[in-house]
């Protein structure tokens, strides 16, 4: 009998738990430890943040589902890792703290045979002074509660505009090394469309602020893509969309401080500037959770497990951008020191960025961190689950399932406005996610037949179809496993 513990019930943790439970017999235990009682389909937070979808539509409680499916569930958060056990506990374990109910505040040693760390990112708002969701007129759409607040803030500004007050709207990244530009891109286009719907577009100045060097970088070093039979650069495509929608932009901006209605930033020229706004949605820096790890004698071994995020089978040797290779990226998400620990999704430490690193004249690094979107989060979680299943069934370690971001495609269907007839979406697919300059030297590291862009109503329908399909899948309804990650 094996016991598999999964930390986190986001996209990757939930995918891993559901596949493990489906494919392993009931003699094996599958346990999820996660602090949030709900599963949330994060991509649809964009629509919660413009008041077009209620947050209840993007979430459901985990406990009843896990009970029905025979998945153990502890509403608790992991605090520290003991991969060798300790003097009193033979088995490896994670120390978890309950966060609700009678056991609130109590600690428990959750032992395991296999551990999947799927804790995603810490939303590190503290890294930017004054960037607090719901304060200083700044908001976030990273969780459903944040998105609810964002809509409250936005609707207030819309009301003021209806009464004749002009407003400045600022959307983008809130830290010099933030990632997830794609989410901010979706939000700015959705907000812009809502302003038109509310007939206040002419009262608003809408501005994109980002740590990207060029528009359309998306933390992926930009891309060449096929668009209507042409080969476009992603910055040309985004520039076309922004100009058409009258959205201004500020690039190479490392926001470092937010005061009531002013975002201060340093640009690549080393200038410190401030941008005034009435409503801002700025994506915070993502960081690891600051977990600690200890050996059997309780010596600190954090550096064996973590480098901010969790160390996996990547090549972490520091090297210049010109020497980066797809082979630096992990394939199995296994920790090299403790081979029964894995970290799919956002929880693993990337070997380096994907976008070219840039510094300001004051030596401040200003460039996007690498994104790990929903599709690769799901795929990496499933392959980790499959390797664990094979290892249990074969009685020895099996790592046949591999999935490097340098050999995996991703579809990013960015909503550009909500509505069955008035909606729009920018559908972009990329293959591979991490550019492979050896294989595709003439097309900026990507295969053009699989890297394309489309703009139009169909993109909105697609995004809506994905919303329903993934919530169906997450609820583990009949034949859920036929829906791919």
């Amino acid at each position, binding site marked *: 009998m094996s016991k598999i513990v999964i930390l986190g019930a986001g996209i990757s943790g939930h995918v891993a738990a559901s596949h493990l439970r489906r494919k392993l017999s009931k003699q094996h235990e599958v346990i999820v430890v996660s602090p949030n009682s709900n599963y949330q389909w994060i991509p649809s937070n964009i629509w919660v943040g413009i008041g077009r979808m209620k947050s209840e539509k993007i979430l459901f409680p985990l406990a009843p589902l896990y009970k029905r499916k025979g998945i153990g569930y502890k509403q608790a958060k992991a605090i520290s890792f003991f991969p060798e056990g300790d003097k009193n506990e033979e088995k490896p374990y994670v120390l978890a703290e309950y966060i609700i109910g009678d056991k609130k505040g109590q600690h428990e040693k959750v032992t395991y045979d296999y551990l999947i760390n799927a804790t995603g990112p810490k939303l590190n708002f503290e890294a930017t002074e004054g960037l607090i969701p719901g304060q200083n007129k700044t908001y976030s759409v990273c969780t459903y509660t944040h998105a609810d607040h964002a809509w409250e803030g936005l609707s207030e500004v819309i009301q003021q505009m209806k009464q004749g007050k002009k407003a400045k709207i600022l959307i983008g990244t809130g830290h010099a090394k933030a990632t997830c530009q794609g989410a901010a891109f979706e939000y700015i286009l959705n907000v812009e469309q809502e302003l038109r719907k509310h007939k206040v577009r002419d009262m608003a100045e809408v501005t994109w602020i980002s740590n990207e060097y060029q528009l359309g970088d998306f933390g992926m070093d930009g891309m060449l893509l096929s668009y209507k039979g042409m080969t476009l650069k992603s910055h040309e495509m985004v520039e076309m969309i922004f100009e058409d929608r009258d959205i201004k932009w500020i690039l190479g901006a490392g926001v470092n401080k937010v005061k009531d209605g002013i975002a201060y930033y340093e640009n690549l020229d080393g200038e410190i500037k401030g941008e005034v706004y009435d409503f801002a949605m700025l994506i915070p820096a993502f960081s690891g959770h600051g977990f600690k790890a200890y050996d059997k004698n309780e010596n600190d071994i954090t550096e064996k497990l973590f480098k901010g995020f969790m160390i996996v089978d990547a090549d972490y040797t520091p090297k210049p951008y010109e020497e980066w290779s797809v082979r630096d990226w992990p394939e199995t998400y296994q920790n090299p020191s403790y081979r029964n620990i894995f970290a799919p999704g956002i929880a693993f430490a990337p070997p380096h960025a994907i976008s070219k690193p840039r510094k300001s004249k004051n030596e401040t690094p200003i460039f996007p961190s690498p994104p790990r979107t929903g599709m690769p989060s799901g795929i990496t979680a499933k392959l980790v689950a499959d390797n664990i299943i094979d290892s249990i069934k074969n009685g020895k370690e099996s790592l046949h399932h591999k999935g490097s971001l340098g050999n995996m495609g991703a579809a990013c269907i960015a909503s550009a406005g909500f509505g069955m007839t008035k909606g729009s979406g920018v559908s972009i697919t990329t293959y591979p996610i991490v550019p*492979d300059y050896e294989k595709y030297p003439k097309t900026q590291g990507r295969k053009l037949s699989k890297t394309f862009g489309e703009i139009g*109503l169909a993109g909105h329908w697609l995004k809506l179809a994905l919303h329903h399909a993934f919530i169906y899948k997450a609820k583990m309804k009949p034949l859920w496993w036929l829906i791919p990650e």
Partner: protein
Amino acid sequence: MTQRISKYQKFKMMNPIIQFFKFIYLSIKIMIIVAGGHGGTRENIK
């Protein structure tokens, strides 16, 4: 504001009939990318 997308292009982007076929086309293209699978990158390294 600069009109970068022509009225005709916008008509095509928002026409439900054209977009219905686009929806089918995009769904298939995305499925091909997903079904195209994934793998490692180090197999050929000796």
